[in-house]
């Protein structure tokens, strides 16, 4: 097929695949990356440098069923960029179901916060966070998790007592021997912190938000009565433009903005989709003043490469059409027209999330 102008903007998520079986089986010292029992069963991790055309973003999608620490001995850790950690359920009929209990430590104090509903944790750049521990999992399908990290290159400084430069080196070497590349650049802090979760004082409570505090759509209808004044204003602006959801849009969806995310320069959506048809009526191709990615992921924890639907999206003012039926990310650089999105068929409900690199969402229709 002839090369097309925008094909570099449509990537199967499998380009960021990390074989967690291999990662966990790597012969390296206890405490190496991904060696925690609570970490992902399967995971993709795409970053701006290698996969996302230089976007100031790296993100993941993975399925989790294990109990315990995610990075045994390595935490807390910091990143040079802020990030959102998004914990979601896999019950496509219920946006508020997580099916697991999670504990996350925040700050050097390791204030331990626990939740058992879909939740986002916003972590400012440089702030120590984790250990992250899956305390219980009662969902028979496990649960899902994604990172939205505002840096093109995944980079972590580990502060846990169980990590050493030797461990790091051994991990990299073992990965290289197995033909795997670890996208994360890891450093070890001179300052070490002993794992010691403490009762929360509430100091970091503002960083933890249940997903249902966003603008929520349930059974295809936005819950207008639940909107805060600023959310209502935003909704009214969209409605004024004649925008309304099409039949292919989400059954259940939540959308959180920078104001909900400790002021981070990001807004994101998370939703479940089960129907064919166009996603938006009243606005087709549009542009944003900032970059965004649209992620389409399946909900079958036994096969991370299964989407369960066939979707088409137009990109560019030429309306070049791209069609996919595998988990995919569509990169929408600022100013590049994209949409309409049309779901051709759905065999199994799937998930989609958008990550937009601004605290607010702005869209301008172009035709």
């Amino acid at each position, binding site marked *: 097929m002839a090369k097309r102008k925008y094909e570099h903007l449509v990537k199967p998520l499998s380009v960021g695949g990390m074989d967690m079986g291999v990662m966990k089986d790597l012969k390296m010292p206890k405490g190496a990356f991904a060696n925690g029992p609570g970490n992902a069963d399967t995971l993709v991790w795409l970053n701006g440098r290698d996969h996302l055309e230089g976007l100031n973003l790296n993100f993941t999608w993975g399925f989790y069923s294990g109990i315990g620490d995610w990075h045994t001995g390595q935490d807390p850790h910091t990143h040079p960029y802020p990030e959102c950690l998004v914990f979601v359920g896999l019950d496509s009929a219920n946006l508020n179901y997580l099916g697991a209990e999670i504990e996350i430590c925040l700050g050097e104090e390791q204030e331990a916060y626990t939740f058992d509903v879909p939740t986002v944790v916003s972590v400012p750049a440089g702030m120590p966070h984790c250990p992250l521990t899956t305390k219980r999992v009662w969902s028979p399908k496990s649960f899902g998790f994604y990172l939205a990290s505002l840096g093109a290159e995944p980079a972590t400084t580990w502060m846990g007592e169980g990590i050493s430069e030797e461990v790091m080196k051994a991990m990299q070497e073992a990965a290289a021997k197995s033909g795997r590349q670890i996208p994360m650049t890891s450093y070890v802090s001179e300052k070490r912190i002993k794992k010691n979760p403490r009762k929360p004082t509430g100091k970091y409570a503002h960083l933890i938000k249940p997903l249902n505090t966003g603008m929520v759509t349930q059974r295809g209808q936005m819950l207008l009565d639940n909107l805060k004044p600023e959310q209502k204003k935003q909704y009214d602006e969209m409605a004024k433009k004649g925008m309304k959801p*099409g*039949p*292919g849009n989400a059954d259940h969806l939540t959308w959180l903005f920078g104001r909900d995310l400790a002021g981070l320069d990001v807004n994101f959506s998370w939703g479940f989709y089960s*129907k*064919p*048809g*166009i996603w938006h*009526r009243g606005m087709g191709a549009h542009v944003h003043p900032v970059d965004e990615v649209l992620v389409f992921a399946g909900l079958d924890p036994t096969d991370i490469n299964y989407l369960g639907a*066939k979707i*088409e999206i137009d990109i560019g003012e030429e*309306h070049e*059409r791209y*069609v996919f039926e595998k988990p995919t990310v569509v990169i929408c650089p600022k100013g590049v027209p994209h949409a*309409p999105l*049309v*779901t*051709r*068929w*759905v065999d199994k409900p799937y998930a989609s999330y958008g990550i937009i690199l601004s605290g607010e969402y702005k869209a301008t229709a172009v035709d």
Partner: protein
Amino acid sequence: MAKGKYEHLLKPLNIATIPQMMRDGAGFRNTGNADSIYWLNGKEHLEGLPLNFSWGFYTGLGDWHPGMDPHIHPYPEALLWVGLDPDNVEYLGAKISYCLGEELEVHTFDKPSVVIVPAGMPHCPSITEDVTSPIGYSFMIFSLGAEPTTTWMGAGITDQQMAQRQQPPPEGARGPLMVSSFSDKRIEVSPETLTYGHKYDHLVKPLVPFKTSLEKLTPEERAQFEKVTSGGMKVGPGNADNLVWMYGKDLEGLELNFTWGFYKSPGVWHRGPGDSDGAHVHPTDEVLVFVGTDPSDIDYLGAEISIDMGEEHERYVFDRPTAVICPRGLPHNPVIARYVDRPYAFFLIGLSGEHGTTYVD
């Protein structure tokens, strides 16, 4: 609608709306004839195809062409009466009586039906005896000639009716819709001249839904069905819940096959084969016709549809009743319903007794 190489193949049906004044002028007011109607023909609208077809909504009782019938055409045609209940393709909601042959053999039906009329065979009067559906019913003509042409044979034709058909169309109106002539031979229609035999029973057939007919396929029909679905094609979510598909062998050998069905859901119509979801060609011409089901507004479709045309997959999108002309050999599809506000209807008119399909990518 987007401009492109194939835009001449997509025609909004309202290019062939017959204005009320022309219908009144034809003397069909307050009769069983159409409340609103489109009538497209090969000469003016369909890129020269040897076809003219109509789509209209009907609520009135009585004779459709008082005094003028029977009539003949130089081409064969199929006349379809269909209901407007999207949940029941077997519901008509009206009772029709229809005369066939010089014998004026009366056939009466109250289910969706097709009447096959060979070229040159006298037919009509058509009389709507009763309408039980609260929104009326619909009727289609599929005539295998590019130019609508009728020779009227009724003994009741008045001088005024003859004059009306020889007048130029009103200013600004398209026309003449029909090339009319008047036979020297006239046939009297009265209770005494009507007959009730069975000579033409074979020309009147109920529309049998595909799901029902699928269960009763002959080996030959099964082979034809499997040919169409070979290569991995399966029905997509946007396709009809239940439709009728009749071929030349069902239509007394006419070089025609057609479908009729209601569509209620968004999504692609065909899944596979191939990434294109079923782009294909036919060895003969066909027309795909998308119409609404709201009798109060014939220009309302109630859905937004996209279709690809050509090997370049030029995409066209429309939300009004539209005919898509697919000349033989020209790739077309996938068809995708983007949204559906109200169930709509679709009929395919293929200019061959069989429906040959070759998938192209």
